[in-house]
């Protein structure tokens, strides 16, 4: 138990180091900005009560806001992601259901399952985040394009990181 908490803490720190030091500086054509810190929400254990999930999402988003100087923006998007995660897990659940004791991982449930699961959560998160950032509906479609492209990039990097995690 303690071991798992420690590992999650380590994951949190690692993801934020990657996000702040590396991915925040990647801006493909000033248009696309991958946010991989949301992977922390993706990898939390199945049996975690929803309210802890929500509070952890809040803390994650707040941390990201502190780093990017945008109070509330990442927080509300990440809380939304944490809120929909149980529903996404329910609709993507494999035939045998989930094993308790292990978090969502590509190794156990397969590449395809993880891709669908991650894409939905990341898309909702990015949708909320980018529309909160522009905060108006005037540039609706250009924002949507940014959302989709950023989701593609974020999911790609998350899949890559998950693959590396699997190899370990």
């Amino acid at each position, binding site marked *: 138990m303690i071991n798992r908490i420690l590992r999650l803490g380590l994951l949190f720190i690692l993801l934020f180091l990657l996000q702040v030091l590396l991915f925040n500086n990647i801006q493909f054509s000033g248009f696309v900005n991958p946010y991989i810190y949301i992977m922390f929400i993706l990898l939390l254990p199945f049996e975690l009560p929803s309210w802890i999930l929500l509070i952890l999402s*809040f803390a994650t988003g707040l941390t990201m806001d502190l780093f990017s100087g*945008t*109070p*509330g*923006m990442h*927080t*509300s998007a990440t*809380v939304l992601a944490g809120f929909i995660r149980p529903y996404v897990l329910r609709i993507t659940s494999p035939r045998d259901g989930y094993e308790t004791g292990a978090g969502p991982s590509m190794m156990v449930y397969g590449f395809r399952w993880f891709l669908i699961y991650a894409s939905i959560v990341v898309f909702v998160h990015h949708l909320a985040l980018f529309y909160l950032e522009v*905060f108006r509906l005037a540039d609706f479609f250009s924002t949507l394009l940014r959302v989709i492209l950023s989701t593609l990039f974020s999911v790609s990097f998350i899949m890559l990181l998950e693959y590396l995690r699997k190899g370990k």
Partner: protein
Amino acid sequence: MRNLLNFLAKYNNLIIFLVLEGIAFYLLSTGNSYHNSRVVKGLRGLTAGVERRVSNATSYFHLREISQFVARENASLRTSVERLTSAENQLFFSVTDTVHYQQYTYSAAGVVNNTVNRQKNFFTINKGRLQGLSVDMAVASGDCVAGVIVGCSANYSVVMSLLNLDFRLSARLKSNGYFGSLSWDGDDIRHVILSEIPQHVTFGIGDTVETTGYSVVFPEGVMIGTVSDFEKSGGDFYRIKVALATDFKKLHFVNVIGNLRKEEQLELEKQFQ
């Protein structure tokens, strides 16, 4: 009570979610100036329609007072017209260019937005740069002081109300001519404070307080109000409470007074400072 607990237990995730999102949105709208301005603008858009209707309705209810006000002003204007024309009512009269010696211009404007419940009150009038108004022109309600223009757009101007802590005006007692500084203490919207009147001056409650004309903004002798109370303050001066002649709660039409010779006076004074 049990129903409430059941309800909370059933929707606890949703409630936590909404609370956390609420906090996040609060942070979003207070922490980011861009989001803040968008939120404020959105809310203002919602309330503007309602406010416009209310303003229409209230202006209708004030029609009686306004018509009386207009009638009174009409009467006084007619008197002055009579006085002016009677002088010319003779066989020979000289034609004078009236603009040549004119110092002040007057133009009427309507108040479209007004606050009195803040410490720094402003109101907006429906004339602006295109109608010849500019910053630092005086604004009077009827013939009583109301404020000074601090900002002009093409068709609107914002006026710093007399009820603003930053407002300073040179004012004097009409009965003896002693002048002091007039300002609002932020306390009561029907009273302002006249200070720096020396203690050897005699005056009574009910004495008129008017502008001095020492500043280039207001002409001389514009009514401000009457003395309602006074007390000694510090060593040598009185602190005089002045009951305002203008009721800022029902400001509808104002006169904007521009000084045509302001630049000339200021330029001359600048050489000796």
